[in-house]
């Protein structure tokens, strides 16, 4: 029973993810796309929870929903001719797009199915926030500090770009 429910939840979430992801890439109104992006990301957070990555799920919501999507919405407000919803949002490459991505899909699904996975049946560490904290401070200390550099670079880059005068 327990398993079935989680299966059910998984299918629900995947359904939401896939449908809204399709909306993200196809809707004409880019603001709606952004909203569906949020929905997708939220559902992905649900998937993380199903994979016992609570901390990551919270991070997902916090960063993606709370920050990046707001940034995207702001950018939309700033740059698009919003009043005119009918603007064509996709280019002539639709057919090519479908072709490429279905090709990719087939290839990857095939390889997923054909690979022999060595599944280890073992629960993840209990408190994943704590574990991650320890990991970050020990093994991943360098990437961790590099993250700050990356962020700094992004910040400075953004500031420089955003405040550059004129054309």
């Amino acid at each position, binding site marked *: *029973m327990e398993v079935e429910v989680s299966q059910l939840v998984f299918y629900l979430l995947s359904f939401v993810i896939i449908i809204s992801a399709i909306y993200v890439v196809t809707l004409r109104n880019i603001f709606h796309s952004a*909203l569906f992006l949020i929905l997708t990301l939220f559902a992905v957070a649900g998937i993380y929870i199903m994979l016992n990555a609570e*901390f990551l799920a919270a991070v997902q919501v916090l960063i993606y*929903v709370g920050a990046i999507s*707001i940034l995207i*919405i702001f950018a939309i*407000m700033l740059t698009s001719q919003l009043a005119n919803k009918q603007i064509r949002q996709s280019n002539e490459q639709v057919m090519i797009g479908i072709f490429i991505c279905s090709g990719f899909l087939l290839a990857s699904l095939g390889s997923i199915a054909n690979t022999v996975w060595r599944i280890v049946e073992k629960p993840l560490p209990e408190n994943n*926030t704590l574990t991650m904290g320890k990991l970050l401070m020990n093994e991943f200390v360098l990437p961790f500090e590099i993250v700050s550099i990356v962020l700094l670079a992004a910040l400075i880059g953004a500031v420089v770009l955003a405040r550059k005068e004129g054309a």
Partner: protein
Amino acid sequence: MELANIFKYLYQSLANSGLPQVWVDIIALVAAGLIVFGVLAVIALFLVWWERKVSAHIQQRFGPMRTGWHGVLQTIADAIKLIQKEDITPTNVDRPVFYWAPIIAFVAAFLAYIAIPFGKGLIVSDLNIGILFIIAITTFTIISLLMAGWGSNNKYALLGGMRSAAQVVSYEVPMVVSILPIILFAGTLSMVEIVEAQAKIYQWFIFRVPFGPIAFIIYIIAGTAETNRTPFDLPEAEQELVAGFNVEYSGMKFAMFFLAEFVNMFTVCAIATTLFLGGWQGPFLPSWVWFLGKTLVLVFLLMWFRWTYPRLRVDQLMEFSWKFLVPLSFANLIIAGFMKHSKWFNW
């Protein structure tokens, strides 16, 4: 004596009734959801009434008097009236967005209560990332404001929505960072464990000088800003943007925003209680009384602010956060780190 026991008993009898465990859990959770909703509705109605009373007495008037004893039924009347109000959807709005914004606003506020302990054992689900979960889930409020602003196809609403998003976003950082010292000392993200770390009154985080009070002040300021209340009530600034993002909303949709606003206010205060004031801890009285009492004191504080201060301007607001609160909160975090390391106040 404790409410929690009653719930436990009810749950037990449900479990014994022979239903499969999954269904028992689901029913229990749905019931919990409905109970939380009921409690929140009552609290919000009470807060609205209380706010009107507090403001009235600050201003030497009475506030609602004629609907029930001292107007206690006033907000109920308001609610029933709002149900009867026509629900206008202007022609040019972005319908789905317009429709869903209030729902998301409310649900975001509502979900936070999963992880807030109302009393000893009175918590829906003690998530192990409790506080982080609350912070994460409440960011949906911003989305709802943006949706309301966008969906209304109204310049005032759009400006209000953008303002509030920017404001919430700016105060999110000091808020989060002001919480961190608590987590640092409690060593956990779970709300229950944080409360348990403050069993004695001197262990309350607000009394752990110097980082405690500073963090508390930062948190209260940021919390006021997050809930869009004076002096940070720019998104709804009546004098500038008429009614801000909800300018086009009427009837129940408006009621949802209204409800969400007050629920959010309560959330902020409830978190502050949990994090800084020892949550439900307190002698003699049942734990939920302590929790409610402490929270309401904080709510009163916010109301008091509102009826005293003028409003900041939008850019001043941003500058205040980024130039003052953010560096201060980081400094506070570093201080707390040193204190934790050197084992001061590790009582």
